């Protein structure tokens, strides 16, 4: 099983090729919002470095967000295009679970200490964040973590309020992600711990490893069904006709 993993949900983008033995090649992470320019050349260079061709791939793995719209579009559309062209499945991994999976690896080896609740926080821009919670898997599963609640869009103050309540109940919370960095003071003020630097970025190697395991266990999805998780307020039909009742027709 050989997979190509595409990460572009936040300002950091990277790609990696992995098989059962581990990561074969990983691109230098790019920071910024030029994912559209950097991703295709990065795929070419990791494949060359790993000594594989696209035709040898068995599955694609992509971070489907939530995160930056501009970044997600690049990763998801690239995964879909390659999935169609190569006729292989795509494994979707969420950005928040990916951050939690990265952090969980560090505690998986440790023993004796009760692991904290993992609270990945991704900057949603315009003063909002995406967040979810993950606890240790019981019984221990291959991914070490278990989702506690769904991905949601928060005002940072609202998230801080929920964390304060959890901390007061005696639950240790570890915040990670670019949203945790941006709202560090607010979240630390709520009593949450802020993770060390290396855990704030999604790790494309973790993405590749997780995707590979999931592809082997359950397969992926057909490219046509893969979508970015924008996680924005309810998508409703705009009733222009009603809005413009007794007004001139559209376009006049």
């Amino acid at each position: 099983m050989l997979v190509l993993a595409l990460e572009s949900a936040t300002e950091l983008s990277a790609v990696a090729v992995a098989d059962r033995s581990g990561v074969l090649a990983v691109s230098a992470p790019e920071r910024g919002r030029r994912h559209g320019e950097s991703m295709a050349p990065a795929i070419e260079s990791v494949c060359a470095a790993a000594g594989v061709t696209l035709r040898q791939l068995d599955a694609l793995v992509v971070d489907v967000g939530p995160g930056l719209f501009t970044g997600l579009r690049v990763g998801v559309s690239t995964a879909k295009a390659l999935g169609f062209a190569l006729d292989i499945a795509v494994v979707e991994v969420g950005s928040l679970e990916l951050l939690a999976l990265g952090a969980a690896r560090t505690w998986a080896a440790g023993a004796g200490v009760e692991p904290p609740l993992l609270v990945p926080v991704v900057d949603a821009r315009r003063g909002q964040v995406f967040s979810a919670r993950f606890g240790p898997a019981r019984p221990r599963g291959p991914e070490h973590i278990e989702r506690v609640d769904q991905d949601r869009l928060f005002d940072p103050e609202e998230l801080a309020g929920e964390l304060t309540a959890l901390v007061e109940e005696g639950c240790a919370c570890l915040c990670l992600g670019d949203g945790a960095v941006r709202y560090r003071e607010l979240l630390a003020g709520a009593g949450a711990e802020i993770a060390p630097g290396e855990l704030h970025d999604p790790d494309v190697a973790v993405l590749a490893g997780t995707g590979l395991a999931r592809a082997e266990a359950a397969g992926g999805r057909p490219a046509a069904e893969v979508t970015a998780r924008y996680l924005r307020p309810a998508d409703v039909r705009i009733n222009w006709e009603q809005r413009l009742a007794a007004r001139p027709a559209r376009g006049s």
Partner: protein
Amino acid sequence: MPTAIETVTTSAHATRDVGAALSGALRPGDVVLLVGELGAGKTTFVQGMAAGLGVAEAVTSPTFVLVRPYRCAPPGSARNPTALRTLLHADLYRLERTGELADLALGEMVEDEAAAVIEWGEVAGPVLGRGALTVRLTADDDLGEQERRVGIEIPEDRQADAEALQSAVAALDDVGRRRS
């Protein structure tokens, strides 16, 4: 409570001047929601904003392209007193669903030393409304044909900008006839 500035303009030219005055108060990352019926003068107002930022290109309705970027004069120059490099002009009139707003990525685009002005902005309110400025243009039966009521709402944490804008608007000709 946001600060509200209310005025009545007596000509399209005056509406344009208020737009230019507003642009002087803008900062990178700002989103201006423009609310008003067809013919209320939304595009005219945007033309004024563009003039206030030293945009050289002609501003037209972006209806068919959804978002059009305009390059401002160099930031901090005589023609553009702000820190903006780009004015993004969006028109949501072609959108069928509010979910399509996400595809415009306006919240991210304004991070690049830009501000966005959005026609039919009330549709975007629930998505982009946090910290946004709102401009309401109204043509009323109790106003003359060329007159428009212009209401500008500025977030409460922008008091200094609101005061500067209020004096700038008050200094304009053909505007400032205030109505309650």
